């Protein structure tokens, strides 16, 4: 089973996770820029974070045979802090980088006027940089937030097939499918989706334009959830081709629209003696 995890925050995971992911069949990931638990207070710390998503993290991933790309954006929660607004000025510079395959995560957290403004501004940047966009839907008041996100996308002029709406569930999938956007599902141990509910949705809505991710980060989450969904699909009677469509072809097709997806085989570099990563002296 080859797996492309289209949404995982590897910066918060250990090298053990990279090893287990490789064993499970994960060969490519996209790490969207998001918040880090502790709120940031200046654009400089965002620049360092973006540098990490373009430098250290792909380098670390490559040592475990996994290709790493990222999406770059000012996330909706921190869009509410005026001290972080300067991040928008940094974005054009970062959106030009080879490793960036979309603008994201953009969207809503609390649906404030500040979030409206930053969301729309970043969809405009996506058009300018000729990149797709990856939209986070809010945990609170999800259906309203998803509907409103689709409205903002429509008004932006960004083609719906260049937009991925993520963290969907049974109540939000239909409107996104109807709008013609890609449908993302985060499979979590407790919250969001689980494997069996995911399989039920795939039975009802089909595999077209559906992406499954672990969204693993620093919270309770599981970087092997993609694999578990693949197994649940097979058990429920889906074919190996169906699994490959959802876990590989669809993310490749969506992020491939950037023209920057590079899936050349990543060779695990030789490990530095006795250490799992070349961390230096």
């Amino acid at each position, binding site marked *: 089973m080859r797996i492309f995890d289209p949404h995982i925050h590897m910066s918060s995971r250990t090298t053990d996770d990279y090893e287990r992911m490789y064993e499970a069949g994960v060969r490519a990931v996209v790490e969207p820029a998001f918040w880090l638990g502790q709120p940031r207070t200046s654009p400089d710390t965002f*620049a360092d974070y973006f*540098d990490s998503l*373009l*430098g*250290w993290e*792909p*380098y670390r991933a490559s040592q475990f045979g996994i290709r790493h790309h990222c999406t770059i954006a000012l996330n909706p929660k921190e869009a509410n802090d005026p001290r972080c607004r300067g991040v928008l000025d940094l974005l054009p*510079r*970062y959106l*030009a*980088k*080879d*490793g960036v395959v979309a603008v994201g995560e953009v969207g809503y957290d609390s649906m404030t006027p500040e979030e409206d403004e930053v969301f729309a501004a970043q969809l405009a940047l996506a058009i300018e940089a000729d990149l797709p966009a990856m939209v986070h839907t809010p945990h609170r008041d999800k259906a309203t937030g998803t509907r409103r996100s689709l409205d903002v996308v429509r008004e932006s002029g960004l083609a719906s097939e260049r937009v991925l709406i993520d963290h969907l569930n049974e109540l939000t999938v239909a409107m996104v499918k109807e709008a013609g956007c890609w449908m993302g599902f985060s499979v979590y141990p407790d919250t969001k989706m689980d494997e069996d509910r995911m399989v039920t949705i795939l039975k009802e809505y089909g595999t077209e334009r559906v992406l499954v991710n672990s969204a693993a980060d620093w919270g309770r989450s599981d970087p092997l959830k993609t694999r578990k969904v693949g197994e649940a699909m097979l058990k429920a009677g889906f074919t190996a081709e169906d699994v490959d469509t959802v876990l590989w072809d669809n993310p490749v097709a969506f992020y491939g629209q950037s*023209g*920057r997806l590079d899936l050349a085989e990543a060779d695990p570099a*030789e490990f*530095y*003696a*006795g250490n799992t990563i*070349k*961390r*230096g*002296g």
Partner: protein
Amino acid sequence: MTSTTDPVRTLEAALDGTLDERGRRWLEQAIGRVAERGQAVLEVFPAAGRSCGRGPLPGMPGWTVDQAARARLLLALPQEGAPLGELLFDVYRYGDAAERIAVLKALAVLDGADPAEGGADLAEGGRAPGGRLGGHGLPIVRDALRTNDTRLIEAAVGPYAAGHLADDEFRQAVLKCVFVGVPLSAVAGLDRRADRELARMLADYARERTVAGRDVPQDVWPVVERHPEVMQDRGRQDVHRPERIG
């Protein structure tokens, strides 16, 4: 010792033989923009890989096409000296890994070294005519040497570092290479700059590894053996280069 050829001509000859029509046109326009307004380099630099390709560059061992294209763009900058160093640092600071490596490799070229000769003249202590960077690229080298990315560290210990780093910095750079597994064959000018103090540091490192029951990288020995007296000092007599097998 001076450079006998022009780095711009060397890069252009190598790139000419490799770029397709689209890449050639992109590079020509990008050079024009950079020559006219140095800050434009910030806009064109990230796209060099997508526009020109990333494969190995025939005729220039160790260089890729995007690295050479990026070096060519930096050579088009109108700035010199400190302002050039500041602009280069900005390009490097906001660069992804590939861009940072390209800036590091270009430092020697901007200092007048001929990339086709691997910057040997600079590494050996010569000063090439036409160099317009001087020591103003050193903050970039120092930043790269603080990272833990072996690709950056390897690019940092090129001829520019050999020509400009102070003795203590150069020794730390060599030690860092040994620690992270960058082969010492990648360190430009090592023969000229390997002094007794570096031999002492590497001998101590070898001892530390031996005491811990770990392997000692083979490439430290040629440096240590150039100063055999460091092995005679108290505490190091128990460290020996293992016999070669075969």
